[in-house]
Structure formats: structure tokens, C-alpha cells
């Protein structure tokens, strides 16, 4: 038996409590790329947070819903998914209602890493020779200069190029990105907030470590001994985590490795709000405002589509290690 946690101070709470306590107007938030906390994101919309800055290497569907709902008015990202086609998001990006700074998948991940490690900047060769380095882009009026005010009141650049003092090579300097709040949906956690997630994790671990506040929702809350007999799966320990939400299907319609697969039927439906404002209202009314908890959302989903669609995405033949890894020392 593994030892139990030294002290236990449960961080378990509901989605509503977690968002109420820890997400504030004006915050910079990370809300996942591959381990997307849809339930928590919908709760942010229900609680009508405003002026959020959504950061992430790829701001997928959940982040774009925050923009569409008027909760987010700016973002720093390398990708916004297929939400643009001449619809509301494209409109907002063009007219400046949604301000943004363009990065890439690697550069955003490096920015989280820099913040997580307490580095003042991080060098990369990405963007060398490209138009990201032109003045027009660096000083774009839809950019986030207002988020880059230094303590002395001057404006920090978005990117800078310098020569390495060691080799003379040119390199692009990226600023650290430190979210106020980072959220993911994971496979399992314990009530102390030890978080285990697996599968392709994209930038999530770095965003969690970079953030001031970490909120996770989990498919399962497990005893601490489950975590502490397999600690290699932990992506962030409880002492860095503020809130844990037990939320089965909290990652739907995205996939959760070992639990359920991407729900392509729902994504087709969920693409609708990005087509025009009326469809957006309809979607939010039904699936966000009309389903105040994830359990309610799941019930609504089953009512609307029958059990078949939901059952179809559930993992029925999970992969388990052919030879479980041993650990231990005596």
C-alpha cells in the first residue's frame, strides 16, 4: 500500500464553485487544446465572465465559443480551428472586436514553458525570415499592446530578434505567457488535486505549470493511493492545483483517451453557432444556458439523440499495457 497523502485538504468542488471562486473578469486563461475542459468552459459562459484573454497554442472550439459568447475579447494563439468561414468569428477578428496576437503551436508552448520555468524570455528559430517580424504585424492595431505594458509604463515588443552572445546566430525572443488561470479536463485526479492525464497532451502541462491558478475537471476522482502507486502519470501535483471538479463526460464533445472518442455528430451540430449569430444564440440557449450542469447536459444530449450516439463514442476496448510496468525498490 502506498502511503496516504501527508495532509488532506479536499479541493473538490462543483464547476460553478470553481469558476465562481477562481475565474475573474479580465483574466488571461488557458482552456485546453487536447484535454479540453468543455464543461468548465461552458460554465464560464453561464457565469458571463467578460474581457477574458484566451491563450493556447491552438485555441480550439471551446476557446472560440468563449469569444462567440462575448466572454473573451482577445487571444494569443497559433490556430483557431475551423470556426472562421465568413462567420461571426471572422467578422470579429476583422473589425477588432476580437483582438489577437498570432503565434504558432511551438512558440505558444515555449512561452508557457518560459513562464513555468521563471525565464524572462525564450529563444526560438521559428518566425525568422517571416512576416511575423514586420513592423506592421508587431504594431497591429488589433494586437495586444495594452497587455504588454512594462512596470515603467512603456510597451514591450511582441517579439524581438537578437544575435546570440555566444555564437552570433540570429534568434527570435518570445515573452513568457503566464495565465491567471489554466484549466484542463483529465482522466483522473484525487481530491488533493494530483492530476493524471495521458494521451497527446499538446501544450497543457506547460500551461498548467505556468498559471497562477489551476482548475481541473476529471472523468474520475480516485483515491490518493491510485495516484501514488503510479506517479509517473501525474502532470501536476496537488500543491499547484486550486480546484478539482468531478465531471464525467466533462471533455465531451472532445475525446478523452481511454474513456470516449471525439463526437463527430455533435461537432457537426456544434459548428452551427459559428455560421451566424442566430445559430450561436440557439446553440448557447440549448446547450450552455439550458443545461446548467454537465449531468444536465448529458441528460439533454441523450434526450435529443437517444442513447445510441453517446454510447457510440464510449471506449469499449481500452488499451491496457501488455506488460504492466513494475516499480519499487525492495
Amino acid at each position: 500500500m502506498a502511503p496516504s497523502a501527508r495532509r488532506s485538504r479536499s479541493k473538490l468542488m462543483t464547476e460553478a464553485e470553481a469558476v465562481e471562486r477562481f475565474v475573474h473578469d479580465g483574466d488571461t486563461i488557458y482552456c485546453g487544446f487536447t484535454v479540453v475542459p468543455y464543461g468548465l468552459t461552458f460554465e464560464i459562459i453561464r457565469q458571463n465572465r467578460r474581457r477574458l484573454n484566451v491563450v493556447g497554442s491552438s485555441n480550439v472550439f471551446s476557446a472560440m465559443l468563449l469569444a462567440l459568447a462575448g466572454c473573451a475579447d482577445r487571444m494569443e494563439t497559433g490556430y483557431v480551428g475551423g470556426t472562421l468561414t465568413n462567420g461571426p468569428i471572422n467578422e470579429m477578428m476583422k473589425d477588432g472586436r476580437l483582438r489577437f496576437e498570432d503565434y504558432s503551436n511551438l512558440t505558444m508552448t515555449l512561452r508557457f514553458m518560459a513562464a513555468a520555468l521563471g525565464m524572462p524570455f525564450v529563444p526560438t528559430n521559428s518566425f525568422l525570415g517571416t512576416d511575423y517580424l514586420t513592423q506592421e504585424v508587431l504594431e497591429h492595431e488589433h494586437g495586444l499592446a495594452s497587455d504588454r505594458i512594462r512596470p515603467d509604463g512603456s510597451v514591450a515588443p511582441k517579439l524581438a530578434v537578437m544575435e546570440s552572445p555566444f555564437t552570433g546566430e540570429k534568434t527570435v525572443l518570445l515573452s513568457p505567457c503566464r495565465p491567471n488561470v489554466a484549466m484542463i479536463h483529465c482522466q483522473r485526479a484525487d481530491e488533493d488535486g494530483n492530476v493524471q492525464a495521458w494521451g497527446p497532451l499538446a501544450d497543457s502541462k506547460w500551461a498548467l505549470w505556468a498559471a497562477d491558478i489551476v482548475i481541473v475537471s476529471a472523468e474520475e476522482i480516485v483515491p490518493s493511493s491510485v495516484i501514488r502507486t503510479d506517479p509517473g502519470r501525474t502532470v501536476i501535483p496537488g500543491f499547484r492545483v486550486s480546484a478539482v471538479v468531478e465531471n464525467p463526460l466533462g471533455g465531451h464533445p472532445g475525446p478523452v483517451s481511454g474513456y470516449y472518442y471525439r463526437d463527430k455528430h455533435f461537432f457537426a451540430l456544434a459548428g452551427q453557432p459559428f455560421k451566424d449569430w442566430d445559430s450561436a444564440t440557439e446553440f448557447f440557449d440549448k446547450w450552455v444556458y439550458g443545461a446548467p450542469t454537465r449531468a444536465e447536459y448529458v441528460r439533454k444530449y441523450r434526450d435529443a439523440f437517444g442513447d445510441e450516439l453517446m454510447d457510440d463514442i464510449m471506449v469499449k476496448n481500452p488499451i491496457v499495457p501488455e506488460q504492466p510496468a513494475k516499480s519499487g525498490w525492495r
Partner: protein
Amino acid sequence: MAPATGDAPDRGYDPIDMQCIAAAREVAANETVIVGMGPPLLAGSVAKKIHRPEMAFVTEAGPIDWTPSDGVPAPNTIADPAMTEGSAMVTDMLDALGLFVMGGRASAAMFQAAQIDRLGNLNTILVGTYANPVRRFPGTGGNADGGASAGRMISTVPLESRRFRERVDFRTTAGYLEGPGAREAAGLRPQGPNVCVTTMCIFRFDTTDGGRTGSCEMYLDGLFDGVSVEDVKAIVPWDLQVASDLVLVPPPTSEELETINELDAERVYRVPGRY
């Protein structure tokens, strides 16, 4: 877009099938490839299944050296958790795009782009100008990172006049930049041989040393069955050079067609105009 299947003889495959298969054939022996969203995921899967089973197939979100089991479809995104089955390593973006790509360990990148120019630079974010975009695209993802750091670029771009430009509207991804010597002057490693696989033909670039010398300009190297040089020249807006030993790209084999149809039974990757 020119020859759709409607006005061409029925060959049993579409231009986009041929594009994915031709891109798959471009993967060289023992390559380590970062494979991007859209048709590259399908093309890379075809290469892995039949042309280069020894290749390392890596995607940005963390799967490293994915080997598909029988009957498994091509990954639906670069983050498809289906790749946790059969990968040598599944971690995260700092590993896949950092250790692997920025670290110089990706011999090739295979990415789709919205636009490409005469010198192989790619655009993935917008049409128009940055200040006044006519349209924004989903974004660059890891495309810009691949252009900076991968050993060479295998790009997939449908052959349409709005996509082939003297200069791309926005250069997100470094190809040969302004021409010979420009990559090194910008601080980038040489890159190549680069190739652009379209829905009608294959373009290569006039440089044998990764962009140090040669014109670095795109030239027509191979035509798909039923396409003429004039068809291609009518779409490309500059005075396109043509290889003296221009080849006819062999049509798909039955094995290639069977494989691509099995990997993408629902044809999600082969929707013209989707990417």
C-alpha cells in the same frame, strides 16, 4: 479549380486522391516526418502503411513514431488519441515540436498551406493584408515551426490561382525566402529538397544545397495523368519554368487506392476546398 472529375474521364480516383498518394510517395527512406493537419495526415498515413513503413510519423500534439494497426483509419487530427495505440512515445508539444522539430530531428515536415509563392514560402493565416484581411484562415499551427526547423518541406496545396502567388499575402512559413542565401542570412538552416504536391502536378525547387545557391525558384517537375503543361501554366501567375526531363507521375496503384480508401473511408480528408 480546373479538372474536377466531372469534365475529366473517370479514372477511378479524384485529383485529391492523386495528390495525397503523390505526397505519400515523396517521403524518403528512413525519414522522420512531422505530419500536419488535413491531407498530410492522410498522405503520411498512406506512406507509413505502404511506401515507408520504417518512417517515423510524428504529430504536433505528442504522438511520436505512430504505427497504425490493421483497419485503423488515418488520424482525424494531429491530436487524435487513437495514436496512443501503436506509438513509440506519446508526450506533448514541447517534445514533438521542440525536441523533435526545433531540435533539428525532423528530416521532413509535411504540411498543407493556403498559399505558396515562387520561392516556396507558405501562407497559412490570411488573405489580404495583415491590417485589412479579406479572410482569416484557421492559423499556422506548427506550420511556421516546420518551415523554420525541419530538414525539408513537403507541402500540399491545391493548384488554384488564388493559392499560387508571386509573393504570398503573408509569409507565415519560411521556404527559400527571397532566394539564394536568404535562409542563412535570416538565421535559418538550409532546407531541402523541398517539394509542393498539388492536385494536378508536382513542383520542385531550383537549388541543390538547401537554398544557398541556384535560383531557388519553383519549377514544374511532374504532371498527373491527363494534365498538360499549359493547364498548369494557365493557373500559375508567373513565368513558370518546366523541367527539361518533365515526368508523367504514375497514376495510383490499386494498392495505393485501396489503402487510401481504407484509411479515409468517409472521405473526410478528400473534400475539395475544405483545407
